[in-house]
């Protein structure tokens, strides 16, 4: 065995011991716990005053503040005989057997028993390591960051970036051979997911594969770094650490999204990371050049404001102490890789963080305001500040008014046009109108569905739409055979047109499935002879237990997003239905009626056969007319959005942000963390463990947040940049150079490549000027990143866990990438970005407002315009998510209360259940199937190519193609009469889409 191999063996075996908590270690820990929690307090309180180095003169020459002290003992020899209490002088003394210690007041029996037990079990004493001088080498992270030269290597042609030298040097030293480069497909998919969280598109794939120049790689990386998806993805890494959520417990806070958008923008703008840190911790205290910048600086401090606060805690000093504790914990772990919070109740057990340092930091945060008691009842809320209004000069102001007028005029004209168009359709006596936004699933036998809908009051829109007594709405569930499975006719409770006094009535009905497959829903006028008006429906929902199959709010037209008030007539609604047994494009004339502020009911007006024909495009003329109508309708919606935005511009805006209290203060130590037990006062300051020479001077009139932020990013701080670049490395390579990414303390893992870590830290700080994008760019263009993830028997034997990076780690997609990429691949990803995601304008989405005990809560309805956006724009609660977002916890998405630098990655059968059966996944398979059919016509081979490119980022291998086609052929093609049914083949493709979409080919980055 050569030396290098030998070293590896030693290295690996040492670590193996560390990873496996042995029985012995467990016992050690128990002893340690006993010593620290029982023995040490006793020694400190009863013995130290006379027998310690701090005592003026150690009595009898005996000191008990280190194990060395009692081993050596005083004038009477060793004070303790480990394992033999009866022969230990200390025990004899406390028993008042000869000596009488402590003099005056004998220990309680239980206290004596503690000492006896301690000595009997071997007198565990770890006080050397408790002192502020940890074992040599243990605190590597506190040593100054070096700037090592890239080492010499043999295989120089392998090098691209300096990073490669460090990696290759270690590989060569250990007789490991770097893996061959990944093929272009695998590399492109890897880098696209790593940088943007999405899959490469077929065009991006073919462009890259066609470009054989070396610069092809560079242009891909630059394109990805410049795409908005970069911020969407990397901001999410930041939210894993910053406990971001949109809803505080379940109560409402409307403005968190501003912080979310700020972070995304910061990553996309490549804001220097030191500046990013300063702004988040102390933005409100920083100078600014413009109103825009002032707003940004205020919003940035949402970093500290937003967190898992128990705002209903009615013991407010406790709430304050807990918030401060979390803020300290977050900063400690995120930037310093330290568990400072441990020092809340006692000096840190193994890292050099005394309780004093904790309360020095606590003073800073107690001098800053996060929440206040606002009511109702016991509740506090996160403090919001009004943002300064963006300046509007006169010119802009009048331009806006002109714009508003123009828009209103155009809107009026278009509406008139639409009205005219509606009237060209002859009335029909047997019109049907269909509304169903999605398939109603699986209707197995005996499953009970509950159908509920709100029937709205009617309000006049035009004279010919008056409602008559006896008019009704009919909702029918149609089974696979086209039969009406359930018919619910509703005569609205308040049918008469009462504009002044509108109200809704709810109708609930149930249906028990007959096992005959999919259901669709049809809504028609209940009175077929009615030329006028069918009624109005506000919300429709079909559910079975918790499973929601259909949910339609009608708060917006179903085909396109429109927010805000629509209390006008003349709105066009297009409803498309795409199911095998009820194909067609329906159109109906409807009115959106405001039935309560901000909420609308859609009045369904009769459609007609003629319209259906028209929409099916029977004649060229009809097609053209329809196209015109759709354009007009779309334009109307745009106009209204713009008008709404113009109106909204004038509203005051708020952000959660921090401020200092008027008279900042130092705090006292809370003994044992209890705010009722005050110890000494500690001046505000920072930890002594790194850049000690830079002692913090906090002006008396400031909290110290600004100074803290500057201290974090000072050159002398040995932790922050190491911790940050290690996080970047972790996200790109699947494991940090320090694998315990949130913990760089004594019990953390040592870096696998210490020189490399220092090299990247220095480059990040000095050369790249804290640029995250530049740092990522260098890393992903390296040959290290380009290696394939293929195994190699010899290497596997030597370094089975790939610690030295002889190949790329194979990684599963993150929860949000699984969701986002599924939507992207199926063609339904909504690329809209930014803004509030709570849909507060939806009826019922603000619950319990105006109560005197509890604040309003968020109703949890996700607006249509948010539903298919990327995960980072979805509303995030501190409760388990429901609906489509259920996927997140299933795949280890972190709980928003937790600080999670490295997500655990588990494989459990519940994930497979989700992938096989969840409505979300099935819907994506359906959509994907539609997409590949639309694109490929009847060419099955082209269709398969497209499917593979979309899902796996590469064409299928020969055997995969064969396997796939064999699968298609294995499914039935003929109906009961033996006739080949093309629908069956299409369904088989859907199963193939589903299968591939949940296979490892999709789930893993190779």
């Amino acid at each position, binding site marked *: 065995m050569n030396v290098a191999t030998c070293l590896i063996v030693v290295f690996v075996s040492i670590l193996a011991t560390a990873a496996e908590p042995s029985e012995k270690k*467990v016992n050690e820990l128990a002893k340690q716990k006993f010593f620290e929690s029982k023995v040490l307090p006793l020694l400190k309180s009863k013995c130290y005053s006379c027998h310690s180095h701090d005592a003026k003169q150690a009595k009898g020459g005996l000191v008990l503040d280190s194990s060395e002290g009692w081993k050596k003992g005083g004038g009477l020899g060793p004070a303790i005989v480990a394992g033999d209490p009866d022969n230990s002088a200390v025990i004899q003394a406390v028993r008042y057997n000869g000596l009488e210690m402590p003099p005056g007041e004998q220990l309680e029996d239980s206290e004596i028993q503690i000492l006896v037990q301690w000595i009997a079990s071997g007198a565990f004493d770890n006080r050397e390591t408790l002192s502020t001088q940890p074992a040599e080498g243990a605190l590597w992270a506190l040593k100054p960051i070096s700037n090592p030269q890239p080492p010499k290597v043999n295989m120089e042609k392998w090098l691209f970036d300096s990073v490669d030298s460090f990696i290759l040097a270690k590989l060569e030293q250990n007789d490991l051979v770097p893996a061959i480069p990944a093929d272009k497909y695998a590399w492109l998919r890897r880098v696209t997911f790593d940088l943007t969280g999405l899959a490469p598109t077929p065009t991006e794939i073919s462009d890259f594969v066609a470009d054989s120049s070396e610069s092809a790689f560079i242009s891909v990386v630059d394109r990805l770094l410049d795409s908005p998806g970069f911020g969407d993805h990397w901001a999410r890494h930041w939210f894993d650490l910053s406990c971001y959520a949109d809803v505080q417990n379940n109560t409402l806070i409307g403005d968190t999204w501003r912080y979310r958008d700020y972070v995304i923008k910061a990553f996309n703008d490549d804001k220097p990371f030191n500046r990013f840190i300063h702004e988040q911790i102390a933005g409100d205290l920083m100078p600014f050049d413009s109103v825009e910048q002032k707003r940004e600086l205020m919003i940035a401090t949402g970093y500290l404001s937003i967190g898992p606060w128990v705002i209903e805690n009615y013991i*407010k000093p406790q709430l304050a102490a807990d918030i401060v504790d979390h803020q300290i914990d977050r900063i400690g772990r995120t930037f310093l890789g330290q568990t400072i919070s441990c020092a809340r109740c006692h000096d840190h057990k193994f890292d050099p963080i005394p309780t004093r340092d904790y309360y020095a930091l606590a003073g800073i945060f107690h001098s800053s305001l996060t929440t206040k008691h606002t009511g109702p009842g016991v509740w506090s809320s996160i403090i919001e500040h009004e943002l300064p209004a963006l300046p509007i000069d006169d010119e802009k102001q009048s331009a806006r008014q002109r714009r508003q007028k123009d828009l209103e005029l155009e809107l009026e004209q278009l509406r008139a046009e639409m009205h005219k168009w509606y009237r060209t359709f002859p009335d029909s006596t047997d019109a049907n109108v269909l509304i169903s936004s999605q398939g109603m699933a699986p209707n197995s036998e005996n499953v009970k569905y509950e159908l509920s809908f709100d029937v709205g009051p009617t309000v006049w829109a035009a004279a010919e739409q008056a409602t008559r007594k006896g008019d009704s709405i009919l909702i029918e569930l149609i089974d696979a055979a086209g039969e009406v499975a359930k018919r619910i006719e509703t005569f609205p409770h308040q049918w008469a047109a009462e504009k002044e006094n509108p109200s809704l009535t709810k109708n609930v009905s149930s249906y028990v499935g007959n096992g005959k497959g999919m259901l669709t829903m049809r809504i028609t006028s209940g009175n077929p002879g009615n030329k006028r008006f069918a009624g109005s429906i506000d919300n429709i929902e079909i559910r079975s237990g918790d499973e929601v199959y259909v949910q339609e709010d009608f708060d917006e037209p179903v085909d396109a997003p429109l927010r805000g008030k629509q209390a006008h007539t003349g709105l066009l609604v297009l409803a498309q239905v795409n199911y095998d047994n009820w194909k067609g494009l329906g159109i109906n004339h409807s009115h959106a009626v405001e039935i309560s502020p901000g909420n609308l009911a859609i009045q369904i007006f009769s459609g007609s056969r003629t319209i259906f024909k028209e929409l099916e495009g029977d004649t060229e003329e009809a097609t053209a007319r329809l196209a015109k109508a759709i354009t007009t309708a779309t334009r109307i919606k745009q106009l209204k959005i713009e008008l709404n935005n113009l109106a909204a511009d004038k509203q005051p805006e708020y952000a959660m942000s921090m401020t200092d209290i008027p008279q900042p203060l130092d705090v006292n130590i809370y003994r044992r963390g209890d705010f009722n037990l005050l110890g000494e006062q500690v001046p505000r300051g920072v930890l002594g463990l790194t850049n000690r020479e830079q002692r913090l001077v906090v002006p008396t009139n400031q909290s110290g947040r600004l100074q803290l932020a500057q201290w974090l990013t000072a050159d002398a701080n040995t932790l922050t940049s190491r911790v940050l670049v290690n996080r970047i490395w972790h996200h790109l390579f699947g494991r940090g150079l320090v694998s315990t990414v949130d913990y760089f303390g004594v019990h953390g893992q040592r870096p696998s490549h210490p020189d490399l870590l220092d090299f990247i830290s220095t480059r990040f700080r000095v050369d790249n000027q804290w640029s995250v994008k530049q740092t990522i760019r260098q890393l992903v263009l390296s040959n290290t990143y380009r290696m394939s993830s293929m195994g190699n028997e010899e290497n596997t034997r030597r370094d089975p866990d790939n610690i030295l990076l002889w190949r790329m780690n194979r990684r599963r997609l993150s929860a949000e990438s699984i969701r986002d990429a599924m939507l992207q691949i199926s063609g339904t990803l909504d690329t809209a970005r930014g803004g509030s995601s709570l849909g507060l304008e939806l009826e019922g989405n603000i619950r319990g407002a105006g109560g005197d005990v509890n604040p309003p809560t968020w109703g949890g309805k996700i607006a249509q315009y948010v539903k298919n956006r990327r995960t980072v724009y979805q509303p995030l609660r501190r409760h388990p998510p429901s609906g489509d977002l259920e996927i997140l916890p299933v795949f280890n998405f972190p709980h928003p209360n937790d600080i999670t630098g490295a997500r655990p990655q588990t494989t459990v059968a519940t994930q497979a259940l989700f992938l096989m059966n969840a409505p979300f996944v099935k819907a994506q398979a359906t959509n994907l199937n539609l997409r590949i059919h639309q694109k490929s016509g009847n060419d099955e081979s082209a269709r398969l190519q497209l499917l593979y490119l979309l899902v796996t980022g590469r064409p299928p291998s020969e055997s995969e193609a064969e396997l796939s086609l064999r699968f298609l052929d294995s499914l039935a093609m003929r109906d009961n009469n033996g006739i080949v049914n093309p629908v069956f083949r299409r369904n088989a493709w859907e199963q193939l889409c589903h299968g591939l979409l949940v296979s490892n080919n999709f789930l893993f980055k190779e």
Partner: protein
Amino acid sequence: MPSNFVHRRSFLQRSACGFGSLALTDLLLRRPLFAREPTEEKPLQPKPTHIKPKAKRIIFLYMKGGPSQMDLFDYKPALVQGHDKPLPYKLPSLEETVGLDDTKLMGPIHGFSHRGDSGLYMSKLLPELGKHADEMCVLRAVQCDSPNHGVAERQLHTGNLFDVTPSMGSWISYGLGTENQQLPSYITILPGEGERNYSSCFLPAIHQGTAIQEVGMTPGRAPIRHLKDTAVAEDVQRKRVDLIKALNREQLVRLESDQQMEGVIESFELAFRMQTETPKLVNLSNETQATKNLYGIDQTDTNQFGRQCLLARRFAEAGVRFIQVTLNGWDHHNKIREGLPKMSRQCDKPVAGLLTDLKQRGLLDDTLVLWGGEFGRTPHAQFGDGREHNPHGFTMWMAGGGVKGGIAHGQTDDFGYHAVSGDVHINDLHATLLHLLGVDHERLTFEHHGRPFRLTDVAGNVVSDILI
């Protein structure tokens, strides 16, 4: 013992869901990964205990919302006397409160009587449960550290107020494994919202509580989330699973073996088996009518909770280590005179039925039943006809495996507000539960974030007075 007992038990033990190997790989990236993770072959295999166990399993009847102790178990003559009189004590000055302006004492809303040979005082609202007084070990001075639902609930379930830590069921599963490899070690029946309370958190995912979300009241509804794909015929589903496996295998051939990917492949096969086997677990049709009546399944008020309790017995019988049953609705801030009798009706018969049934099957000796909420309520009225949360001293009770019956441990003050003696903090409760199961709470640890964690954090004393 009924003749079908063995049959049913062996059925449940045989039902081949393979939960025992549910967690196929568990790569906790935040734990050191330098060395190959010791992948336990069978992480749920029964493990040796530190001391001789008195109980083999726990059924925790969780009364969510905080039941009123002075109306149910903690009889206070002074409170009866003091009804509608001004408070003889001060409210804590640091607490912001609501609905307590001009609050007065409120006597128990219903009569009490002595029950059993032991003569335990219990409310007449619990007539059936009273028949088991001599088996009950009532803890009258339980304490927790927060008056807020979310936080107190977390403390009760995880021992921890704020940090994200594993629930006690997960700790117990981790420490002891389970007797039946075919079932999850930890099952929670109708937990409602509150996934954090049965989360394995940083412990391996196999120790996560499995939520049963349907107890046979809605025909066709799956007992476990996403268990079924009802739109696709079963043979097509089978072919689809085979396709997924074939696609994954094909990839592995190309790449070489990969532990994590192999885990995924296996997970699909297991999931497919679960689809067919799991519904049988919650099917109560082979229980006798007499048994169903015992739990009140024949009555509207008790149908749902009765089913939950009966399922709990079935799971206990089958060897599940920790079973939680949740009954929500005890948060009576107002109208307690209507609300509490209603909840008591829902609770009384099923719980009494469970104790009877466990006893007649010989299971009560090694099954510990624990009943209680996240906190209790105040002796003074809130909004005139309700009671506010009270973490300072409230009642929980245990029965069965290893605890004395017919005793009351601990005392609150004259009004039932604060514990005055024999207090049992949640950490003590957890230490005691672990002790009964044979586990030393100070030795059940897990390394996380660079330090060992345990259910009882740095506290907890076993309440030895109540042990047999």
